[in-house]
């Protein structure tokens, strides 16, 4: 039951049409309809929310205003603050970030026989990977193929992705699942071993593999366990605040900061992998976010300052179904798997207003249109929302399906008295994913020698929109890939000498001359949620 009577009344409208709505197969939109919808309602098209960069390698490009402020912000240190001649840590491969990509990279680098080390500003596993609910794509069924997966991913990303990256994503996908399974990651399977797979928005085959709706958590906790078993050093509560270069401009380590004591430390490395994840906590355009506390775009800043280029930094993913109510979980992710299992999006009149499995950008724009232009949203104290009719799942697949397939969702809403088996839930788009990021080649190399990037911080894999289940896949495939290539490069690289942080002063000067210096300390490291002005 909702605590607000009016919502219970409105939920009855949904219930009254449920039997009629459940078997519906709504028409999918045409390419032109989708184009028009996106241009009119997707947040990426809101001109006033972006700024043009005035300094750095992407000078002239537009990025979200909050990101521009950090990219053109002030380094937290000066070169004089640290002694680069006496490193506190010495390693072959330095991995910045302890999520799915960082952990995968560490395991592969270790496997290759080099010294790897992870630094993370929180704990290993405190990452968006841990929160991925719905699943991971791989074209491993007889009616599917990497070619079909390629078309789905490339088309879903509006034909903007780098073909060689999509190729790697889809052709390495089955191997990634096999690798995880051999590490002991559990997947939902039939008794004969066949994977239980579903659709995601924009997929043309059912290739979403899952571990209930804890898919990312199951993967992340297993990777973390493996990293610890292998004895790979994990320096937690320690953020990277600047990349260190050598005299030839190659990456050679990072300046680290203890998050609690603020002590600065120097890590020297032959190669560096940035695997810092996304940016949801920048709350672009005032959206709530489904992201982890540490998702503050740090890797983009670190890379940008030493000259690594950004690709598609102006395109963000707003997950169509963030929680719209209640306030305690406002913006939290309601997995797309809820729709994969048969729940549909319904407006205030109880009508299904779209096919529930269009791509995420289209679905988000459609929900925004329903709540604005069409005036068919449901008003709460938190804003507008639409219904996601979860009881349809059990009408379609039988009682017990929700508890078995999406227990986290049942628990999340159950804590606030809402039984998703019997009542529909309120949803509205939430800031979910950074489609773009550091531009990489298919060996995960950025334009700066010996500097690699993998996971959400990298761009070009998903074009301008990512499909469900291609992100968990991306962090595994490209995390491993970065580990393999960075390890190989480390083997042929001597211990860097003549380390320098000259880039800081150089970038500061360029900023000053451009007149665009924001003065904001960056990278941001953590969002500022403590109430001020009490």
């Amino acid at each position, binding site marked *: 039951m909702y605590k607000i009577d009016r919502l219970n009344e409105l939920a009855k409208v949904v219930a009254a049409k449920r039997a009629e709505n459940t078997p519906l197969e709504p028409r*999918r939109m*045409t390419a032109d309809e989708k184009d028009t919808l996106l241009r009119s309602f997707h947040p990426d098209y809101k001109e006033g929310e972006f700024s043009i960069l005035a300094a750095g390698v992407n000078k002239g490009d537009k990025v979200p205003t909050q990101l521009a402020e950090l990219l053109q912000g002030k380094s937290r240190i000066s070169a004089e603050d640290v002694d680069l001649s006496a490193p506190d840590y010495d390693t072959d491969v330095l991995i910045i970030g302890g999520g799915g990509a960082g952990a995968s990279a560490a395991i592969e680098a270790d496997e290759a026989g080099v010294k790897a080390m992870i630094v993370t500003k929180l*704990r290993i*596993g*405190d990452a968006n990977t*841990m*929160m991925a609910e719905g699943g991971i794509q*791989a074209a*491993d*069924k007889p*009616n599917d*193929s*990497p*070619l*079909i997966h390629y078309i*789905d991913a490339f*088309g879903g990303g509006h034909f903007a992705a780098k*073909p060689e990256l999509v*190729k790697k994503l889809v*052709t390495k996908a089955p191997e990634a*699942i*096999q690798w995880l399974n*051999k*590490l*002991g*990651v*559990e997947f939902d*399977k039939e008794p*004969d*071993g*066949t994977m239980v797979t579903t*659709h995601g928005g924009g997929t043309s*085959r*059912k290739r979403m593999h899952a571990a209930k709706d*804890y898919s*990312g*958590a*199951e993967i992340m906790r*297993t990777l973390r*366990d*493996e990293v610890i078993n292998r004895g790979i050093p994990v320096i937690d*509560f320690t953020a990277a605040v600047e990349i260190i270069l050598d005299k030839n401009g190659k990456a050679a380590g990072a300046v680290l900061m203890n*998050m609690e004591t603020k002590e600065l430390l120097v890590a020297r490395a032959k190669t560096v992998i940035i695997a810092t994840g996304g940016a949801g906590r920048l709350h672009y355009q005032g959206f709530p976010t489904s992201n*982890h*506390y540490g998702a503050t775009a740090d890797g983009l800043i670190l890379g940008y300052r030493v000259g690594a280029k950004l690709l598609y930094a102006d395109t963000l993913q707003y997950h169509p179904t963030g929680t719209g109510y209640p*306030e*305690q*979980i406002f913006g*939290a*992710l309601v997995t797309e798997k809820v729709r994969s299992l048969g729940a549909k999006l319904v407006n205030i009149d109880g009508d299904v207003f779209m096919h529930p499995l269009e791509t995420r950008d289209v679905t988000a724009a459609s929900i925004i249109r329903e709540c604005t232009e069409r005036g068919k949203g449901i008003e709460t104290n938190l804003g507008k929302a639409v219904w996601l009719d979860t009881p349809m799942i059990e009408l379609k697949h039988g009682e017990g399906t929700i508890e078995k397939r999406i*227990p*986290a969702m049942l*628990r*999340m809403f159950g*804590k*606030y008295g809402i039984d998703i088996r019997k009542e529909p839930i309120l949803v509205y788009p939430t800031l979910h994913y950074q489609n773009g990021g550091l531009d990489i080649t298919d060996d995960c190399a950025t334009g700066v020698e010996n500097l690699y990037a993998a996971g959400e911080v990298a761009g070009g894999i998903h074009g301008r929109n990512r499909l469900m289940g291609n992100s968990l896949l991306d962090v595994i495939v490209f995390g491993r890939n970065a580990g393999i290539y960075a390890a190989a490069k480390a083997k042929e690289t001597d211990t860097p000498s003549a380390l320098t942080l000259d880039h800081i002063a150089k970038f500061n000067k360029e900023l000053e001359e451009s007149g665009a210096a924001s003065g904001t300390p960056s990278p941001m490291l*953590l969002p500022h*949620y*403590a*109430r001020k002005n009490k």
Partner: protein
Amino acid sequence: MENMLNVYLFGKKYQVPAGLTIMTAMEYAGYELVRGCGCRNGFCGACATIYRIKGQVELHGCLACQTEVEEGMYVATLPFFPLEKRVYDINEIKPDAQIMMQLYPEIYSCIGCNACTKACTQELNVMQYIAYAQRGEFEKCAEESFDCVMCGVCSSRCPAGISHPQVAMLARRLNGKYIAPECGHLNDRVGEINEGIFDEKMAELMAKSVDNIQEIKDMYNNREIEK
């Protein structure tokens, strides 16, 4: 005026609006969180917390990000708890009861007090999954413990010193790797890819993605979608 509640953060009294979670109440009180805050969505276990309502006996375990504040709540966060994780080579161990005896012998000291289950922030039957682990029933242990976020509140209450989340982690990896059925179609597909049977067509797709985008668009817009 908002409905304000009295909560005691580490014993110190603050007035916070009703409807906040323990985590947002701490931020409302002015805390800049570094530890004890992770995904903020109930998946990572960073914000393990124990609380007691003033005047009541029962001690509760919860996740600060998933729990609404109540009047008279005494809150202590548990941002770190020293769980004991034993290391092993997943490729060398076998899924038999011996491995638990070897790596986590303390589970056989369980006195059956059920404090772990009562404390679980995910409402799991923790003592039951430990019992499964004792008997080497890893599949059942894996299923029963599946929703564990490894926050460690169970272990903080255990008189036998068991690190329940780590025991369950081992059981799940054994189950996932050795006990759950192998996936034939997955192995077949990896083999096909390694043989290179998709290479030629993939190269064509990639070339068209650059030179003939219209054809790729037509392929995408007219592709058959599995029902």
